[in-house]
């Protein structure tokens, strides 16, 4: 773990132990224990403890600047790329400390999709998807073909691009480009997929396709989605975490959170009472 500060005593992560279904009570695939993140001296995430269960979609909601994106950037070690950014506490994937692993290996196991679709501009659809594998040294054409087709199918894009797979990725529509980015992330066979506001630049139809895709993806992957859109959290996520000023305020089944939140702050945020 990087950072100069002494790691605080790990807190018991917010888990589903208090959730309604006993089947849901499981140790997280990804577990945060008293995780704090800093930009220089400024604390952006304040001792968050949280379990993200496997094969579940977890939404992270909260007002702008509350630390949502910073939190997920800590999960695939993108936070440390920012100058003077540090992390304390513990983050584990299947019990392995993410900050004791090789950062590249972490990013292969924990993929990320960003707010705006960002296909590599000079590459074809095929090369966009194959890029990660090629970076990891895969050169076998048959293996690349298999991975590209599997990933495009997994991202629900194959049927729309199969006739022009060697055409430029940037010629696709915004929604297709975002699914291309999802396919690119899937190609390296991650275990966890982080999505940072993946639909904020998309129209309602493209958004609906991505949301449908997210519901499908959880069968194979653990999905964590940051969203400003609370209806989107309600539509796609089984679990929701509410962050405010870098602190985890509430975490639990999405239905409970939106019907009867436990915390007054959560109630005020989801009902639009923040001034």
């Amino acid at each position, binding site marked *: 773990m990087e950072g100069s500060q002494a790691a605080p005593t790990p807190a018991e992560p917010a888990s589903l132990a208090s959730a309604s279904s006993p089947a849901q009570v499981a140790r997280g695939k990804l577990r945060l224990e008293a995780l704090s993140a800093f930009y220089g001296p400024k604390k952006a995430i304040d001792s968050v403890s949280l379990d993200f269960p496997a094969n579940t979609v977890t939404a992270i909601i909260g*007002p702008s600047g509350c630390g949502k994106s910073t939190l997920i950037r800590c999960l695939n070690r993108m936070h440390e790329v920012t100058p003077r950014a540090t992390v304390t506490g513990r983050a584990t994937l299947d019990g392995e400390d993410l900050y004791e692993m090789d950062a590249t290996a972490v990013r292969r196991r924990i993929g990320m999709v960003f707010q705006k679709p960002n296909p590599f501009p000079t590459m074809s659809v095929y090369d966009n998807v194959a890029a990660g594998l090629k970076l990891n040294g895969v050169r076998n054409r048959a293996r690349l073909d298999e991975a590209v087709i599997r990933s495009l199918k997994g991202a629900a894009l194959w049927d729309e691009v199969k006739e022009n797979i060697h055409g430029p990725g940037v010629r696709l529509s915004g929604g297709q480009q975002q699914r291309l980015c999802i396919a690119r992330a899937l190609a390296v066979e991650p275990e966890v997929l982080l999505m940072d506001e993946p639909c904020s630049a998309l129209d309602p139809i493209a958004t609906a396709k991505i949301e449908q895709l997210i519901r499908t993806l959880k069968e194979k992957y653990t999905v964590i989605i940051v969203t400003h859109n609370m209806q989107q959290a309600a539509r796609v996520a089984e679990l929701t975490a509410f962050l405010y000023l870098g602190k985890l305020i509430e975490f639990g089944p999405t239905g409970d959170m939106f019907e009867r939140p436990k915390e007054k702050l959560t109630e005020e945020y989801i009902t*639009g009472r*923040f001034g």
Partner: protein
Amino acid sequence: MSEGMGAPATRPIDAEIAKLTQDIEAMGRWAVEMVRGGVQAMESGDPAIANEVRGRDDRLDAFDMEIEQEAIRILAMRQPAAHDVRTLGAAIKLITYVDRIGRLGLDIAFYAIDDPGASHLPPWPLLRTMSEKATAMVELALEAFVHRDLAKASRVFDADDEVDELNRQVLKECVKVLDGDPPEPRELLTYVLVSRHLERVADNACKIAEKTIYMETGKRRREFLTPDKKVVL
């Protein structure tokens, strides 16, 4: 931090829910008058009162449709959560209970038309008391809903036991009179039906109180009502 906890935001949904609450209160008063009118029509034997209750039915229907439509519109337009969505869910259920209360009053008015002047037999004063208690329960439940008052909502359940007891007394009294082979057995059967209707009015008042508690706390009936119908919050 670009946003935070400042002054409470002005939300269009607040005014819409306030208006909806007023409309439900008005519908509730309308339905209570139908029950009171039905019982008065039986007591007085005055067909004009019974017909006035019958004349209230169309407006009761209109309240039901208008409030439901508005609640659905708010759900669709505002996509509410937490207390807001519980209020709208409760509102949609409440108007069904209120509609049933009005219709029970309407049925009693029809009995008054079928059996004019049927209030002279011994069990009648019990029915009058039942009517007073059941309609007071509905009013208390509506007040609890309008003012989001959990204490008042809890008291509705206490009053229900009294109405249940009166219902048992009416049945016992009617059986006693029927055992004496009275000349008016049909009227006594009407008493039994009216008693049952008033007991149902009280039950619907409890349902209104139950939804009020859900609206305010998010708790379902099984989470706050003990088997002996005591509210534990």
